[in-house]
């Protein structure tokens, strides 16, 4: 088996002596890492929102989110930035791949010498490193670890909507809800942004795990009107959603609605554990059964207070009952939620306008604390010629009448003045009544304060928006509105950085023939119910009551919340006010 060839053959290796050596000639010259190399971390701290998803995915717990100088906590930014510990890091780059904003990347730098072990714990982007401007290295590849597409919500076709006030949004099925809930990273940026600080990641987890009872408990911890918020909340949480930076934000509102829809109202008492309430003997009077009043009532009642709500109208719910059209919020939802409050012992005194049917003084003296949630009930007039004529309506009262089931004759052509959510509601309701609807707005469509989905809905339903128009006169005939005259406006930028100012263009008069004009330019609070001695003590700022951190007004033992207090003018802020005031009232009276 062995032969001479086997003895000589190995000597062929000598021919390698003639080859170029393959070892590195100059050991001091650095060999750069490959363009995709997973080297030392970099972070664009301006882009980073401190959502902490990198921290969550890291299997070595090598990343900590820490506070950083010059980065402030703000809406949608925790103000924290990732600190990487190279004693633990394994350079798998999952933190980069999962980064919601794409701010975290890696350079292709891989050599680093230092005598101080502390150096190897550093905050990329904050602690300056020589590879910060190195463009090569691992970047978020073109794939996702977190699904970026939102589950579509089924809606009624725009063509079917005329003539009906049936709810447009159909709601998620279980499979849809669980799939949508799966996209959450549980970063909690939404919790900070939500005025009520709802445990959003918590109830989304409950959806994912199919535990509706836990979900409902979490909702009621901070919000006793989830059915309402699940439908009409302004969902500022979704604007800051971390997932929204690389795709569609979570449909947080629809998930809340899903939970609330799954649990029958009869089960609420058992699930929330309110089977018996121990009375504490203190009385609280609440003026106005809007979201803030109802919220305060719930949290006070479950803590044993005797709660009485005085409401001028015949039903509770405030603007959610009388202002929001039923295609957005069906009546039965509201009635059930209010019914639940009645069931746990909140007393409602309807059709009792404070200041007329009962004096404020009486309420003030009868109760240990008073909560004022009167809302913005009084609309601003457009304040132009001809507004007093028949056919010139106010959106608030128009929507109120429609929700009460009254017949309102608006004719064939309707003009809405305004561009907020109230204007959108009025316009879309008018479309449902079969009218041709024009919306006159002083600025551009992108300046409209209304929610973008409302604007989108209005367009879908055929509302014609005429932007940059300034109504100057309502022309009537025989005491009835006949047409509206308006000027076209040009937008002049504000030197001080405010909204651009619409300035009418000379000679651009237009006349629009209409049957009805609906004003929706804004509302204010009506303090007519307060006697002068109380009025003098209540401090306000531009019509809104001044309150402290506990939602207490400048008047002793009087708390306030809702639109009459905060500028955001949405239900969730009102609910948060009610909760905060309830906490403060409890501290004031019981501690």
């Amino acid at each position, binding site marked *: *088996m*062995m032969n001479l*060839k*086997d*003895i000589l*053959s*190995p000597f*062929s*290796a000598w021919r390698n002596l003639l080859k170029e050596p*393959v070892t590195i000639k100059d050991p001091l010259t650095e060999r750069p*890492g*490959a*363009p*995709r*190399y*997973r080297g030392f971390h970099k972070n664009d701290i301006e882009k980073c929102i401190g959502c902490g*998803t990198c921290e*969550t*995915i890291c*299997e*070595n717990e090598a990343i900590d989110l820490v506070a950083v100088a010059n980065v402030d906590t703000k809406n949608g930014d925790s103000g924290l930035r990732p600190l990487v510990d190279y004693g633990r890091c*394994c*350079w*798998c*780059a*999952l933190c980069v*791949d*999962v980064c919601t904003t794409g701010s975290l990347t*890696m350079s292709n730098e891989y050599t680093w010498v230092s005598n101080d072990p502390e150096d190897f714990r550093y905050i990329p982007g904050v602690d300056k490193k020589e590879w910060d401007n190195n463009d090569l290295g*691992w970047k978020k*590849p*073109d*794939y*996702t*670890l*977190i*699904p970026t597409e939102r589950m579509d919500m089924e809606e009624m076709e725009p063509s079917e909507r005329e003539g009906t006030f049936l709810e447009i949004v159909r709601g998620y099925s279980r499979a849809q809800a669980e799939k949508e809930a*799966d*996209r*959450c*990273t*549980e970063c909690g940026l939404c919790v900070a942004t939500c005025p009520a600080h709802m445990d959003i990641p918590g109830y989304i*987890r409950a959806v*994912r795990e199919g535990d509706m009872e836990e979900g409902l408990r979490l909702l009621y911890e901070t919000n006793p009107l989830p059915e309402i918020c699940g439908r009409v909340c302004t969902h500022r949480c979704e604007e800051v959603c971390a997932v929204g930076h690389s795709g569609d934000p979570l449909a947080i509102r629809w998930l809340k609605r899903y939970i609330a829809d799954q649990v029958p109202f009869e089960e609420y008492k058992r699930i929330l554990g309110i089977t018996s309430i121990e009375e504490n003997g203190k009385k609280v009077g609440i003026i106005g059964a809007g979201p803030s009043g109802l919220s305060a009532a719930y949290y006070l009642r479950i803590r044993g207070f005797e709660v009485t709500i005085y409401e001028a109208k015949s039903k509770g719910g405030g603007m959610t009952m009388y202002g929001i059209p039923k295609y957005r919020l069906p009546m039965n939802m509201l009635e059930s939620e209010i019914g639940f409050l009645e069931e746990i012992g909140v007393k409602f005194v309807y059709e009792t306008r404070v200041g007329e049917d009962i004096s404020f003084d009486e309420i003030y003296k009868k109760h240990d604390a008073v909560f004022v949630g009167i809302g913005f009930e009084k609309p601003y007039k457009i304040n132009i010629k001809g507004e007093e004529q028949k056919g010139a309506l106010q959106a608030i009262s128009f929507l109120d009448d429609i929700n009460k089931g009254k017949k309102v004759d608006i004719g064939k052509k309707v003009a809405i003045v305004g561009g907020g959510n109230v204007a959108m509601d009025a316009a879309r309701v008018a479309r449902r009544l079969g009218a041709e609807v024009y919306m006159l707005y002083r600025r551009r469509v992108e300046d409209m304060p209304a929610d973008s989905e409302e604007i989108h809905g209005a367009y879908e339903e055929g509302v014609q928006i005429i932007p940059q128009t300034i109504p100057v006169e309502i022309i009537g005939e025989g005491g009835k509105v006949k047409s509206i005259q308006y000027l076209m406006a040009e937008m002049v930028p504000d030197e001080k950085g405010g909204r651009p100012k619409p300035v009418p263009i000379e000679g651009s008069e237009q006349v629009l023939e209409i049957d009805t004009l609906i004003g929706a330019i804004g509302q204010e609070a009506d303090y007519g119910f307060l006697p002068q001695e109380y009025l003098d003590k209540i401090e306000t700022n531009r019509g809104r009551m001044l309150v402290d951190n506990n939602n207490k007004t400048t008047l002793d033992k009087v708390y306030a919340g809702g639109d009459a207090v905060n500028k955001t003018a949405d239900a969730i802020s009102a609910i948060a006010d009610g909760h905060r005031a309830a906490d403060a009232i409890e501290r004031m009276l019981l501690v």
Partner: protein
Amino acid sequence: MFHWTPDRSAFPTAGPDGKFDFDSHKLVKIWHGPNHPGVTGNMSLELTISGDEVLESKTHVGYLHRGFEKLYERRTWIQCFPTVVRMCVPESDSNEYNLSAGIEELAGIEIPEMAKWLRTLVLEMSRLQALLRIVPAQGGTVGLGLGVQWGVYLRDLILDRFEELTGGRIYHMYMIPGGVRGLLPDGFKERLEENLILVDEFVLSIKRLMLDNAVFKKRTVGIAHIPVEWIDKYGIVGFVARGAGVKKDVRLDYPYLAYDQLDFDPAISTDSDIYARTWIRWNDIITTVDLLRQIMAKMPKKGEFKAPTPNVLHWQVPKGEVYVRSESSRGEYGFYIVSDGSKYPRRINLRGPSYTHAVSLLEKMLVNSNISDIAATMVSLQTCPPEIER
């Protein structure tokens, strides 16, 4: 030729029943490893010797202190992904593949065609770099260190290709559940082909240096013979089984990824000694180079490389259990994965070839062998202690 035979008459002898008295205090016990250059990694052999003959060998592990499998019970599924690669350093990609394939099977995810080809490419590149290191190392065990220098250089070139494709040299962390983490960079195929041409030369050089080497043959031919009956008895797989004439190859027996579209026939021998096993693995280099060329020619130019998965942060892989296997350079490499439907794996169990090769088989093989052959025997089984001690 020079030949010397030790005087074995002075050695302790077996008793009348043919058995040694291990309590006679006449036998010597030595530890081969864990810090012995001839040991394949962090393990050690407790040898009882009589003169230079091994009477008994016991394999000891426990030097790694890792407990990966236990760790996985406390990690989310995605967090296992960066760690599994560490269960086998010289050939980490089989781990990545098995974990991803297992999760995909449990979750019912079909990976895109492009990802299948890229995974096949990476697995073959991984096999190539492992073989480039271990084949010349077989020469090292009998004092022929030169081939190792050549092999390590070429392996580094393949690692360069890994670096530009995956971002890492050793731990590639490239096959993520659902697919892979990126497409080929521009010019990758050309650069890989340049490397493969060097490997072609290397294959010939190694043949001249090692396989056609009188000393090497003298030290390996007929040494550490494994009878064919042992193959099933000890669960022997891969090239060791092929060395004994039993063709076992997961790529052929249970085709996965793109292997059913590739044409290859792994070498086989009936000699079943160290030389045969070296020759088979030397042949495997040739097969792998050919496979890499086939893959580069057949793989699609572009396409999706990752299928969508649920949110990995709280992925609850559906309840179930699965055994996934792939062919590593050492043989069948399997993961047994159990999910209880929670965020965390219930069990991820690795079944590597070394578990039987280095424990039960090696202990049996070393009886009556010469201590000078132990290192060559171990390397001829290509044992890898991390597979035993997970």
